[in-house]
């Protein structure tokens, strides 16, 4: 049963990923991305990480890809692209090299960490045993105690990004005007 779920989810993930790369229409590509994200959510559920699955759907499928689509629609780039022409000449060979590099990195990581993978994730089993909310409680405890600094730094980073975007997007008539306003 677990294998069956895994195979179905993998087909979703891989199919979606191929769709993102191969579809020439940006909106179709974004929808394929949603498929991939759903597949990952299914895998989270089958590994008892229900909270992660929910967050995956709410944040990635529900907010981020919606924003992608939003930008695609507003900018009007939703026509099918002609894949023959290449705006940046070096892009394609570089992508191939980087892709192989990434695969090599993943393979070495998996080979190196095979022993710990064989332990079959004790943490998750502990989390889902017993009561209903153990899962979320465990995540909350590790985020807000062990990794609280990393968590807070990430949120500060996000705020900096938002402020930066606002500053960049603001239209200024002239610098003289601006100093008059902000002073």
């Amino acid at each position, binding site marked *: 049963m677990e294998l069956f779920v895994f195979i179905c989810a993998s087909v979703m993930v891989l199919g979606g990923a191929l769709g993102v790369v191969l579809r020439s229409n940006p909106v179709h590509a974004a929808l394929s991305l949603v498929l991939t994200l759903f597949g990952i959510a299914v895998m989270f559920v089958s590994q008892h990480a*229900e909270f992660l699955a929910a967050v995956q759907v709410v944040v990635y499928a529900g907010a981020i890809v919606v924003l992608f689509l939003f930008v695609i629609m507003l900018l009007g780039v939703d026509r099918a692209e002609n894949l023959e022409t290449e705006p940046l000449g070096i892009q394609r060979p570089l992508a191939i090299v980087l892709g192989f590099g990434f695969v090599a990195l993943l393979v070495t990581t998996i080979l190196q960490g095979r022993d710990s993978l064989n332990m079959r994730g004790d943490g998750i089993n502990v989390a889902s045993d017993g009561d209903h*909310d153990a899962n979320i409680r465990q995540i909350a405890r590790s985020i807000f105690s062990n990794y609280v600094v990393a968590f807070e730094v990430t949120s500060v980073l996000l705020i900096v990004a938002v402020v930066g975007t606002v500053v960049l997007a603001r239209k200024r*008539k002239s610098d003289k005007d601006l100093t008059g306003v902000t002073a």
Partner: protein
Amino acid sequence: MIALTHSLLGIDPLFDGGLLWTPLLIVVLKVLVVFVIGLVATMLMVWFERKAIAGMQNRIGPNKAGPFGLLQTLADGIKLFFKEDLLPERSDKLVFRLAPYLSFVPAFLAFAIIPLGGDYRNGNGGLVTWFGHQTRVQLADPPIGVLFALAISSIAVYGIMLAGWSSGSKYPLLGSVRASAQMVSYEAALGLSLAAVILVTGTLSTSGIVGSQSSLGSWNIVATGVIPFAIFMISATAELNRPPFDLVEAEQELVGGFNTEYSSIRFSLFFLAEFMNTITMSAVIVTLFFGGPQPISIGNTTLDIPLVNNSLEGSIWLIAKVLVFLYIYIWFRASLPRFRYDQLMDLGWKFLIPASLGWFMLLAAQRLADNENWDQLIVMPLSIAVILVCFIFMQLAFRASAKNRESEGASF
């Protein structure tokens, strides 16, 4: 195996003996019943809305098909099925066909986690026994509980967004851009007021949330202080794209909104999804804030319906409470004028989100003080003072940005 069903369907004692035929049949039966209830309820809701609005506007409303015009929706539905199905030439064929289902399916999915009945009195936990198996009167009770409803409502954006885009025409596109911006912004306020409920009850599971609201005083509307309920209600209305937030289909500005190009069965799927969502959202509100299938009880006295057994009584209470909210939605539609788009965004971002965040902080402070045995009389005024200072800063920021905008001109 059992663990997997547990993680998919939640801690339902139905599967304690492994996956057998009877529990499987019970699940299939539940799915069927929930689906049929959804369809029939939607049909009745459309009739109810038309009749109630007609009453408020001194009209008669549907009165020809069936007793009191009850079958009018069925007649309209049959008519829609037999109309010509148009596929606009400039549309994106695949997405155009897909979009109605993307809005129809989530509308039904969200209904799966609502406790539809059962006996929650005296800490019973809503368990009923069917064919010798203990189970709950709800399709699924996943560990993520109410987060599932949130996830589903964020998926529902896709239906409307893609419908507008794939139509290949300007008005639907404008409607869908409006809709997605509106739904994404109000989801934040929705989630934050939901967090207040989760904080107070300490569980995500819907049956757990219902179970904790055993008397009128512990209903979450009282336990969280009315503010999260008010915010949830307003943002739910915006999330549903119902009046006064129905800018998605503002006829005067957008012809018909995101579904202008749709006809026949595809249009009826959107229509169905919209009303189904209204019912689901009312049920979610009742579950979160008004005790779901719990009877009204003050202290030790419970308002009991005579001659009906306790688990059936739960369903009756749920239907009664949901009906109140459906009526309120209709009332909104009949009495409130539509918001302007900038008013909508101001209300969402500048009022509802800060207010829900502030209230959530207040509740958290109160809870922390409770746990650590701090003096509430010191903690509460202090937290209110902090929130007030934040409020003043925010107002100053709004004023500064308004001034900037005046001197710089609009940025788009």
